[in-house]
C-alpha cells in the first residue's frame, strides 16, 4: 500500500495515496476540474489541456492529469487566470469541433460549453474552422460510426483499445489538424476490430457512436437503466441495460464492479436483440395432429401434469427425466432439481455441464474436493505465468482475456497448449501444438522434464499432497516413460518447446492454469485434467494466491446450476444424494418425508438420451436446452427423442428440439427476470428484470412450481426469487452467508458460510476440500483413441466456438450485428491436405463421419495441423454433432466433441 500523504487544494487539506493522480484526487474531493482526455481507467495523456492547475514553487500552468501527488503539495485549482485559460482552451477545441448533437450518446463537451458560457458564437474568442478540415467518416463497422469532425483527438479510444481491452486496433492517421482515428488500413470493418465497443463507451464527444438504434435513440428520454449480469458466457460481466418502451436499446459495462470493471465484449454489448425478437415464444402450445396449437396456461399445465403423472404411474418414477439449464438462474435451477427430485421422485436431472466441464469437475472433485475455479478473474492479470490449455480464451471468455492481455503487457509469461491456432498464440511466449487427443502424453512429458530438472516443490508435496513423497514416487515412475523423445513422438511437439514450457511454468513464482473444452470434451477428458492437476501439485502451483487451476465456464450460469444441485449425484452445495444424513437434512428443509427422496444417483445427460433410445425413459422435461444441436451424435439424439412418449420443452424460442415436443412452454429470458447467477470465479451475481417477458411467457421457476402443484406436490410457496435464494442458502452451506442485500452492488465469491464471511477469492489456501484436507495425485497413462483415422475417414475433426456466436446460436443468431461478423459455417483444412484433396479456399465440401454427414465450405489455413480439421459448431445448417459420436468418458460421462474421424470431399 502506498503511503497516505497530505496535500492542499485551494487551501483545503486533502489526504491521498502518494503518487496517485492529482486530477483524480482533486475530483474525488469535490474539485470539479474540467478535463476531456483524462479517464481514470487510462494512463494520463495530457492532450486537451483543460485540467491545468497551479502548483506552488512550480512555474507555469501544469496539467493536473499528468502529476503524481507528493507530500505537502499546494495546489490552486480555481482562480480567474486558470478559468480564463480553460475557457480559451475550450474555445480552441470548439473551433475544430462539429457540435451537432443527436442525443444518442453521453456528451462530455456540452456541459463544459455551458459552464464556460461559450454557447453563443459571439461569446467565443475563436471562429469555427472545422468545416475546412477534411472530414473522415468511417461507417463500415456493424457496430459504430466514426466521424472525425466530432473528434477532439483525446486518445481515449486508442487507449481504451490498447490499455483496457489489450487489442491495440486503433491509431491516428495523417497529422496536424487533419489527424483522425483509423482502424486497420483505414476501414473499421476490415480491420482487426472485433466490435467490443470499448472505444464507444469511452469517447467523450460522440466521435465514435453506437450504430444500433442511432436514428431513434434519445439518451435523455430513456425510460430506465437497469444493472444486471450479461446473459452470455460465464465471465458474468455487469451490464447496464438502457430501456425504452420495454425494448433494450443499449448495453454499457458497469464501472468499478468485478469481474469486468466496465468492459464488455461484442456479444455482451450488442447481442441483446434476441430478447425483443418477434420470434420469441409468447403462448403455451400443445401439438395436436402434428400441429402446434396455442392454448391457455391452465390447459397446458393441466395437460403436462396429467401426462407426467400418468407416465409415472404406468412406468414408474424411473421413466421420467429432466434437463435443467445453464441459461437459467440459480433460483430456477434450484426449483427445477427440487421438482425432479420431489415430483418425478428420482435424481434424473442434469444439464449441459455434462457436455462441457463434467470431466474437469470430476477430476478436480477427486483431487481437490472442489470442482470450481480456484482463482478470481482479476488474477489472470497479476499472476506471473499463465498456462492456457484447450481454451480459446480470447474468443470464448473475452473479458477474462482482457486481464490476460493486460498481464502480458506487464510482463506475464504465457504458455498456450492447443492443437489449433487461437488468437492468444499472438501473445504467447511458447505455443505447444500437440496432435489432437495426445494431452495426457504431453502433460506426462512435461511432468517428466519438471522432475528430471528438479523443479518440483518438495515442501508442498510433503505437506499438502496425500501420501506425500510416496504418492509423488508413483507419479515419477509413470512419468519416466514419457521421455522428451517419446513425448515428441506421440504429440509432435519438439523437445525444446516442451523444455521451455515446463521450465516457464514450474519455475514461475506464481502460475495459474486455464483449462477448457479442448481438454474436457474427450473420452479421456477426466484423465487429461488429472494429468494437469498432477503437474500443478508437484510444482506447488496451487494452494497460494495467484496460483491454481481454472475452468472458465461457457454459459452465464453453468457454475451456478451445478452449485444449486442440477446434478444427478449432488444436492445443492455438492452434497452427495447417496448419503442418508444428507437426505434427511435436505428433506427437512424441503419439508418432505426423507424416504421419498431417491437414494440412488440419477442418469447423466447422455445416459438420459441413451435410456430414452432404449425405451427406459418415457417422458422428458427440458428447460432451456437444445439437445438436438448440443448433444453428440445428432441422429441418435433425434431417434431417442422421437421414442419418448411425452416431451415438454420450456424455452424462449422455437429450437431444433421444440420441433419434437408435445408441449412448448414459453419462458422469460435472462433480461426479464430477477435472481442470481454464479460466474466462473464463483461470484454470486444479481440478475435484475430490465424488460417484461413477451406475451404470456412466464418465469421458469413459476412454471415448475405450478406443474408440481397440479401433480399433487407442493415444492414450496415463494413470492420472489429472493425467497427461493433464502431457502437455497439454507440448503447449500457454500451460499450460507449470501443474501440479496449483501450482493446488491458487488457479488460475493462462494464459499461464504455466514453473514460475516467475506467470501473466498482464492480456494485451497489453507487446505483442500477433501476428507484429509490434502490434494490427491492420480497418475494416468496415455491411451490411444478407440476411433483413429483410416482409409475411409482419413482426417480428424476438432470442433469449437467463435467469438460472435453462442452455443446453438438460438440467442446470438437473432442479432444482426453478430451475424454481420460471423454467420457461416466452415471447416478449416490444412493446406497440405487441401492440395491432396484438390480443394481451394471457399470450395463447397461434404464432410462425412461414420455417424452422418453435412455440407459446408472449406477454409484452407495452417491454423490446424496436417491430418486435422476444425469446425465451429454453432450453425444448425452444418450440424457438427451429426458427425460426433456418443462414446463417453467412463468417469465423467462427457462426450468426445473434439475428436471424430471424417472424410472431406468436394461437392
Amino acid at each position: 500500500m502506498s503511503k497516505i500523504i497530505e496535500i492542499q487544494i485551494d487551501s483545503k487539506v486533502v489526504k491521498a495515496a502518494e503518487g496517485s493522480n492529482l486530477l483524480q484526487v482533486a475530483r474525488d474531493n469535490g474539485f470539479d476540474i474540467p478535463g476531456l482526455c483524462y479517464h481514470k481507467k487510462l494512463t494520463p495523456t495530457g492532450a486537451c489541456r483543460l485540467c491545468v492547475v497551479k502548483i506552488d514553487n512550480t512555474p507555469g500552468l501544469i496539467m493536473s492529469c499528468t502529476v503524481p501527488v507528493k507530500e505537502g503539495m499546494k495546489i490552486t485549482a480555481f482562480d480567474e487566470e486558470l478559468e480564463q485559460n480553460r475557457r480559451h482552451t475550450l474555445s480552441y477545441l470548439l473551433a475544430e469541433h462539429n457540435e451537432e448533437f443527436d442525443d444518442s450518446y453521453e456528451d462530455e463537451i456540452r456541459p463544459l460549453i455551458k459552464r464556460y458560457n461559450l454557447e453563443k458564437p459571439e461569446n467565443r474568442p475563436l471562429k469555427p474552422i472545422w468545416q475546412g478540415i477534411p472530414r473522415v467518416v468511417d461507417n463500415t463497422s456493424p457496430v459504430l460510426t466514426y466521424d472525425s469532425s466530432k473528434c477532439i483527438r483525446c486518445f481515449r479510444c486508442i487507449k481504451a483499445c490498447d490499455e483496457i481491452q489489450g487489442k491495440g486496433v486503433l491509431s491516428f492517421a495523417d497529422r496536424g489538424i487533419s489527424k483522425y482515428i483509423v482502424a486497420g488500413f483505414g476501414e473499421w470493418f476490415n480491420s482487426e476490430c472485433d466490435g467490443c465497443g470499448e472505444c464507444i463507451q469511452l469517447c467523450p464527444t460522440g466521435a465514435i457512436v453506437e450504430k444500433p438504434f442511432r436514428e431513434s435513440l434519445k439518451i435523455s428520454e430513456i425510460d430506465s437503466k437497469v444493472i444486471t449480469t450479461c446473459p452470455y458466457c460465464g465471465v458474468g460481466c455487469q451490464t447496464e441495460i438502457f430501456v425504452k418502451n420495454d425494448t433494450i436499446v443499449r448495453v454499457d459495462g458497469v464501472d468499478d464492479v468485478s469481474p469486468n470493471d466496465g468492459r464488455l465484449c461484442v456479444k455482451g454489448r450488442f447481442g441483446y436483440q434476441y430478447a425483443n425478437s418477434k420470434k420469441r415464444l409468447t403462448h403455451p402450445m400443445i401439438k395436436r395432429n402434428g400441429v402446434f396449437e396455442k392454448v391457455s396456461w391452465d390447459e397446458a399445465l393441466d395437460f403436462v401434469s396429467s401426462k407426467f403423472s400418468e407416465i409415472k404411474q404406468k412406468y414408474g418414477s424411473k421413466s421420467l427425466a429432466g434437463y435443467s439449464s445453464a441459461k437459467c438462474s440459480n433460483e430456477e435451477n434450484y426449483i427445477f432439481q427440487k421438482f425432479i427430485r420431489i415430483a418425478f421422485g428420482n435424481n434424473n436431472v442434469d444439464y449441459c455441464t455434462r457436455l462441457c466441464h463434467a470431466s474437469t469437475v470430476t477430476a478436480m472433485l477427486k483431487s481437490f474436493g472442489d470442482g470450481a475455479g480456484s482463482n478470481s478473474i482479476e488474477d489472470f492479470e497479476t499472476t506471473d505465468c499463465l498456462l492456457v490449455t484447450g481454451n480459446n480464451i480470447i474468443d470464448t471468455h473475452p473479458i477474462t482475456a482482457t486481464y490476460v492481455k493486460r498481464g502480458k503487457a506487464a510482463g506475464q509469461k504465457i504458455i498456450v497448449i492447443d492443437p489449433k491456432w487461437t488468437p492468444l498464440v499472438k501473445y504467447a511466449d511458447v505455443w505447444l501444438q500437440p496432435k489432437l487427443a495426445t494431452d495426457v502424453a504431453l502433460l506426462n512429458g512435461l511432468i517428466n522434464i519438471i522432475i528430471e530438472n528438479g523443479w518440483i516443490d518438495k515442501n508442498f508435496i510433503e505437506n499438502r499432497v496425500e501420501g506425500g513423497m510416496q504418492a509423488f514416487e508413483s507419479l515419477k515412475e509413470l512419468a519416466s516413460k514419457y521421455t522428451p523423445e517419446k513425448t515428441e513422438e506421440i504429440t509432435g511437439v519438439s523437445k525444446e518447446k516442451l523444455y521451455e514450457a515446463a521450465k516457464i511454468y514450474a519455475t514461475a513464482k506464481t502460475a495459474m492454469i486455464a483449462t477448457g473444452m479442448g481438454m474436457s470434451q474427450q473420452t479421456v477428458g477426466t484423465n487429461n485434467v488429472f494429468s494437469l492437476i498432477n503437474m500443478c501439485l508437484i510444482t506447488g502451483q496451487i494452494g497460494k494466491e495467484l496460483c491454481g487451476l481454472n475452468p472458465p465456464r461457457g454459459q452465464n450460469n453453468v457454475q451456478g446450476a451445478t452449485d444449486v444441485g442440477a446434478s444427478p449425484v449432488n444436492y445443492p452445495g455438492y452434497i452427495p444424494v447417496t448419503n442418508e444424513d444428507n437426505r434427511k437434512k435436505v428433506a427437512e428443509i424441503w419439508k418432505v418425508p426423507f424416504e421419498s427422496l431417491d437414494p440412488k444417483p440419477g442418469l447423466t445427460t447422455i445416459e438420459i438420451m441413451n435410456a430414452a433410445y432404449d425405451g427406459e425413459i418415457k417422458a422428458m422435461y427440458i428447460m432451456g436446452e437444445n439437445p438436438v444441436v448440443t448433444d453428440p451424435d445428432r441422429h441418435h439424439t433425434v431417434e431417442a427423442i422421437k421414442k419418448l412418449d411425452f416431451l415438454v420443452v420450456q424455452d424462449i424460442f422455437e429450437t431444433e428440439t421444440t420441433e419434437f415436443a408435445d408441449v412448448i412452454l414459453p419462458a422469460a429470458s435472462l433480461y426479464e427476470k430477477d435472481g442470481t447467477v454464479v460466474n466462473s470465479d464463483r461470484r454470486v451475481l444479481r440478475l435484475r428484470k430490465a424488460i417484461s417477458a413477451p406475451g404470456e411467457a412466464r418465469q421458469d421457476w413459476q412454471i415448475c412450481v405450478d406443474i408440481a402443484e397440479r401433480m399433487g406436490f407442493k415444492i414450496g410457496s415463494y413470492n420472489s426469487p429472493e425467497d427461493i435464494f433464502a431457502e437455497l442458502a439454507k440448503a447449500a452451506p457454500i451460499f450460507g452467508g449470501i443474501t440479496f442485500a449483501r450482493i446488491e452492488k458487488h457479488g460475493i465469491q462462494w464459499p461464504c458460510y455466514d453473514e460475516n464471511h467475506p467470501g473466498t477469492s482464492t480456494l485451497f489456501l489453507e487446505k483442500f476440500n477433501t476428507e484429509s484436507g490434502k490434494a490427491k495425485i492420480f497418475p494416468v497413462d496415455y491411451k490411444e483413441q478407440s476411433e483413429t483415422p483410416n482409409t475411409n475417414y482419413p482426417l480428424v475433426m476438432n470442433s469449437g466456438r467463435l467469438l460472435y456466436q453462442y452455443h446453438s446460436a438460438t440467442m446470438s443468431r437473432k442479432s444482426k450485428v453478430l451475424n454481420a461478423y460471423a454467420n457461416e459455417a466452415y471447416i478449416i483444412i490444412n493446406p497440405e491436405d487441401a492440395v491432396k484433396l484438390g480443394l481451394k479456399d471457399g470450395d463447397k465440401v461434404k464432410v462425412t463421419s461414420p455417424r452422418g454427414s453435412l455440407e459446408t465450405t472449406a477454409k484452407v489455413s495452417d491454423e490446424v495441423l496436417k491430418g486435422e480439421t476444425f469446425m465451429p459448431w454453432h450453425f444448425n445448417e452444418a450440424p457438427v454433432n451429426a458427425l460426433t459420436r456418443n462414446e463417453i468418458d467412463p468417469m465423467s460421462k462427457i462426450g468426445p466433441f473434439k475428436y471424430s474421424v471424417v472424410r472431406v470431399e468436394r461437392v
Partner: protein
Amino acid sequence: METNIKSILNNYPEGSADSLIPMLQDIQEHDGFLSKEAVIEVGKYLKMPASKIFGVATFYNQFRFTPLGKNHIQVCRGTACHVLGSATVLEEIEKNIGVKSGQTSRDGIFSLEVVACIGACGLAPVIAINGNFHAKVTGESIKEILENYRNQE
C-alpha cells in the same frame, strides 16, 4: 508480389518497431506504393496492428497508397521554384490530369507527387517526370509536356 514483400522483410531479421520506416521505404521503392496487403504483412512480421503502420505511413508525405501511374510527376515546391511560380505549374498539372498530390489519374497514365526541393534550383521552376527533369516550366509549357507523354500511349 507477396514473395517480394517477404524477401524485403527478410532483410530485417531483427525486425522491431525501429525498422518500420526503412521497411516501408523499401516496399515503396519496390512496389511504388504501400498496398493494404503489404501493410498487413508488415504488421504480422512486426506484431503491430495495421492501423499503427497506416498511422505512421500517413504521417509522412513520402508514402503513397495507390500504385504509381505510368508516368510519375514530381513537382518541386522548394523556395526557388516557389518564387518563380511553381504554384501555378502545380495547379495546372492538377487541373490537367485531374488528381491531387499523392494520387494517380484514373487512366493510370500519370501520378503526382509534390516534393520539397529536388536540388536543381538553377532550373526553377522544375519538375521531374520518371526522373527526367523539365526546366523552367510554365503554366503554358506544361500542357505541351503532358500532351507529349499522353501521345506516347
